[in-house]
Structure formats: C-alpha cells, structure tokens
C-alpha cells in the first residue's frame, strides 16, 4: 500500500506539488490523472524517493520514504516515463542487472528473469540487444525491469504512451493481472478512457493539487458527467475557478465522507 500525505515541492516560484494526499490500496489500480505539468511525475518521483519533498510524507508498506528510502524502493517496482534502455544489453541482461539490486542472484534470479520474460511475452527477443527495438519492445523491457523482483507495489508513469494498439492492450492486461494478483498499482495516464477502463480509483491532480479522488463512477456522479473525460474537464475547470477543497479532503477521499469506491479501504 502506498500512502501519500500532504506532499509539497516547489521549484522557485513554481508550486509543482502543493499539498497532495491520496492512498493506493493493495489489489487496486489507482490512476493519477492530470494535464501536462500538473505535478504527476514530480509526485511519483517523491514517492520513489528520487526527490525530497519540502513537506509531507510517503509511506510504502509501512516504510516512510524519508526515513528508509532503501526499504521503500525495495517494496516498489517503478516504470519511469522514459523509454530508455541500454542499447548494448539484451532484455535478459537488463533484468539480471536490475534484479541484482534487489538481492536476487543465481538460480533465483534466473527463474525470476525467465518468469518476467514469459509474463510479458518477450521470448522472441529476450536475448537480442535492445538497439533498434520498437517502442513497444522497449516499453516491455522497462516494465520487465520494474517487475523482476516481483514488487508488491508497482508505479508506472504513462505506461501506454506512444504504443500501438496491440502493445497498449498487452500493457493493460499486465496491469490488470498485477491487480488480480493483489499488487498495489499506481499509474499516470493522459488517456481518460484508459483510466475509466482500468482504474479502481482515480486521483485527479491539477496545478499541483488533488482536485478529486474516487472511483471513475463516483467522479462522474459527483460532477454530473456521463464520462470520465467530461468529469475530468469539469474538475479541471473547477480547480481553476474554485478551491480544490471543494472536491477533495485532506485524506484524498471525495468530499462528503464517502468512501472512494467499493474497493477502497
């Protein structure tokens, strides 16, 4: 489980993240939605301990990131927003390299690497250097190295961005499979239909603040919109004109004390 409480990060005059709170339960897919520059990636980086928050805390499976960043990272599998790979290494070598950081070695590491290769359907190109890989193949490498240690909590920064239809479907299947296996999944996306299909919970972030948190159905109901996209636009507009607290309380749940969907804690 990932708990984010009152995170703040400013870059000079820019309030990149300004008091963000939400939580991601195990066995749920939580989507972090927001326009470009809303603070999604900065929030994810603070959760991973890459950036120190100026205020607030992140707790992953009971470990506070400021106190024990190594334990937090051990509990996380992170797919970053970049599609960068080491061009002279094969996917299998990528997974072995990254698995080594999580205490895996020998036959245990080999077994985990093979399991990831099978899970992501990478058998045909697992032993080819990644130089010249398609975007979809590279994305699988990045996803695989995030999953090689079988983390309880998985963070994905725009995992389907730039992928073709087949690759998008495969990625979404993996996300669902992780949820079904009881993992806590937190991902960011620009695609509202994707969020509506996949997410059990959605946190909408606008200008560094959480505008609303809830299930897609709850957000639509709350805004009176028939689609998540319309609800998002309404919330974004609301955030520009109204106070953020109109829609979200400090715990990151929808105002009025309603529980954030059936799968929420």
């Amino acid at each position, binding site marked *: 489980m990932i708990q984010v409480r009152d995170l703040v990060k400013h870059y000079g005059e820019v309030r990149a993240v300004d008091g963000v709170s939400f939580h991601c339960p195990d066995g749920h897919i939580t989507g972090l939605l927001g326009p470009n520059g809303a603070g999604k990636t900065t929030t994810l980086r603070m959760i991973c301990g890459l950036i120190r928050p100026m205020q607030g805390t992140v707790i992953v499976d009971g470990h506070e990131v400021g106190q024990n960043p190594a334990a937090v990272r051990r509990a996380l599998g992170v797919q970053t927003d970049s599609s960068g790979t*080491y061009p002279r*290494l094969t996917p299998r070598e990528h997974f072995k390299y990254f698995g080594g950081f999580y205490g895996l070695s020998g036959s245990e590491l080999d077994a985990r690497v093979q399991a990831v290769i099978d899970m992501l359907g990478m058998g045909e190109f697992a032993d080819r250097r990644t130089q010249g890989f398609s975007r979809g193949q590279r994305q699988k490498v990045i996803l695989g190295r995030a999953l090689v240690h079988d983390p309880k909590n998985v963070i994905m920064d725009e995992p389907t961005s730039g992928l073709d239809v087949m690759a998008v479907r495969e990625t979404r299947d993996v996300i669902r499979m992780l949820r079904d296996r009881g993992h806590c999944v937190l991902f960011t996306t620009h695609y509202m239909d994707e969020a509506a299909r996949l997410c059990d919970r959605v946190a909408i972030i606008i200008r560094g603040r959480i505008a609303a948190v809830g299930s897609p159905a709850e957000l639509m109901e709350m805004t009176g919109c028939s689609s998540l996209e319309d609800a998002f636009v309404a919330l974004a507009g609301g955030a520009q004109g109204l106070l953020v607290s109109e829609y979200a309380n400090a715990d990151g749940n929808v105002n009025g004390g309603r529980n954030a969907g059936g799968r929420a804690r």
Partner: protein
Amino acid sequence: MLRDVMNIWRKELMDTVRDRKGMTQAIVIPLVIGIFYASFTPMLMKAMTARREKPLTIPAQGIAYADARLLDTFGRYGITLEEYEGDLEAVIQDAKRESGLVFEPGFTEDVSEERPATARLLTNSTAGGIFGGGFSDTRLQLAVGAYNQMVVAERMAAREVDPAILVPVALNAEDLATPEQRGAFFASFYLSILVAVTVAQGGLFVAIDVTAGEKERGTLESLLVTPASDIAVFLGKLGAVFTISVIPLVLTLTAYWAVSNVMPPNMAGDSGLPGFMLTASLLTGMPLALVVSVAQMMISVRARTFRDAQSGATPLIFAVMIPGFVAAFSQAKALWSCLIPVYGPFAAMGRMAQAGGLQWDAMGLSAAGSLIAAAMVLPVAMKMFTRETLLYRS
C-alpha cells in the same frame, strides 16, 4: 553496498566492451600512439643512417677546376660530382635538386699555392624533405673538413711543424651513464607524454557515457529508483571509468616497452625502455588515472548531454597533458615536486629515469599526491551526483 557497486561495475564494463566506438577511443587509439612513439625514433634513426650512407650524387659545374684529391675525398664519403650543364641555381631554387657545387677556374692552383680556394655550395633547405638539402650540405661539409685537415697536416709537415700545436686542449668525453639510464632517459620523454595522453583520454568516453549518456538515454532514473544508494551507483560507475582508464594505460605502456626493446633507438647502449621504467610508469600512472577519473565523472555529471560533457571535458584533457609535456621537457625535478597533483607522477618518472632505477620515495609522494587529490575531489563529485537539480535537468 559493495554488491551494488560490483553489479554496476560489471554492467558498465560489459556495456563498454561491447561499444566499438568507445573501445576504439579508449583502448585502440592510445595503443596505436604507444606503438607509434616506440617505433618512430628507431625508424627515424634508421632512415637518417640510411641517408647518411647512401651514395650522394651532387650536380656541379667546373669539376675540371677542382683538386683531384678533393674529389677523392668526396669519393671516400660516398659523394660523386656530376657535371651539370644549365642553370644550376635555377634548378636548386626550384627544389628540383637539393644542392650543387660550383668551382671557379684557378681552384687547384690556389690550393697548391696555399691561397684560400673557394667553391660555392648551393643548397635549398626545403628540397627533398627533412633529409634533403640540409643533409647533403652536412655531408659535403664533413668531406671538405676532412680534406682541409689533410691539406693542413701536409703543409705543417712541410714546415716541420707538429700538427698537434693546432690542438692545445684535447677533450676526451666519457659518458658514464649506464645503458639503463640512457634507455630510461630517452624513453622518459615519450613516456610522460604517453601517460598523459592515455590517462586524459582513456576513461573519458566511459565517464561521459555512464553519466550524461545515461541521462540522455533516459536510463538513469530507472537506476536511481532501485534500492542501490546514490553513492553505490556513483562508485560503481567510477570503478568502471577507472578500470577502463587503467586498461589502455597498461596495454599502451606494455606495447611501448615491448616495441622499444624489439626496435631500440639507435643510441649509445642501444637500450629500449628498461623494465623498471615500465613498473614506475604504471605505479605512478594508476593513481593519476584515479584522480582524472573522478574529475571526468564530476564534469560529466554536470552535463546535460553527451556533447555537453565532451565540451566540458576539453579543459581537463589539457590540464593533464600540459603537466606531462612540461615534465617531458624539463630537466631537474625536485623530490617535493612529486607530491604536486597531476604533475607529480611525471616528475617522479623523470627522477627515476635520471637515477636509472626505482625510487620508492618519489613514487610514494606521487601516489600520495594523487590519492589526496582524489580524496578531495571525490566528495564534491558525489555531492553533484546526488543533487536532484543536476540529475533531472534536461
């Protein structure tokens, strides 16, 4: 932490070894330079010797006026005069011939009647490359000098004067340098330059690739979200940079040593690079490589892109190579100067070359200077690596 450091070190080495461009820059080029330096001098000496011994035909005018014994002397020096009909000055000025001689009527009579006899030596120092006009000139001067000595000796004998009066002081020079000293001293000139070039260039490509290159590729963030600490990541990468710096150093110096002993420079003693100088160069070069690796990492970490890092590293290359060149050209190197970072290793090599053997005090000071410098730069570089503003600006 050690496990993470080793994991990163192994991966970076494997990645680098598979990179043909990087390997060429890191290893092949310094190796070629080492072999070139080692073989250049012997080849130059051989070419000069061959040129000195090769028959030389000089175009001349008025050969009939020349003293027959002068022509004989030329013959003993491998010089043949060939009568030239035409504008001799023009062909030499046009660099079509390297040099020529012109004898005026009365030359032989002047010699026999003990009047100064003059011949014109025409040369063009630009003709025939570095072994051209100037070289022919030297050979002719040597032959004429020998002829003059012979004639003077005859004239003094005719006057019953001992020719020894012309030599009031005889200086018998004896070179007491051992063959090892001569070989080491000669080689140390190139060694300083070789070590400087190898250390400055060896790990640079790798340092850039594992820092700015990773940032540019977008792989650095994935690495930093692993449980490996930033310090472990930095040290693993630094270890790879240092290793890749040392490999070309060892290969290049060993190649230089081997080639210089197969093809020794044609000097007194005919000695190539003595084994102790190979040891000395490696033991002083490796700590220097560590300092330079840390500095290369520091510069590369600051850079946003590979190209940025390359530009930023250029002053560092000069900062290493200039002390190497200064040491190569300077003579006296005080013991304390071995402690000066970057310059010290070169000073230590120079001292050992002059001494003709290993000097542990010089090597110790040199290593201490390098390690102190590395210890001072390392925390700064690590701090830069862990600063989020530097890591994520792009």
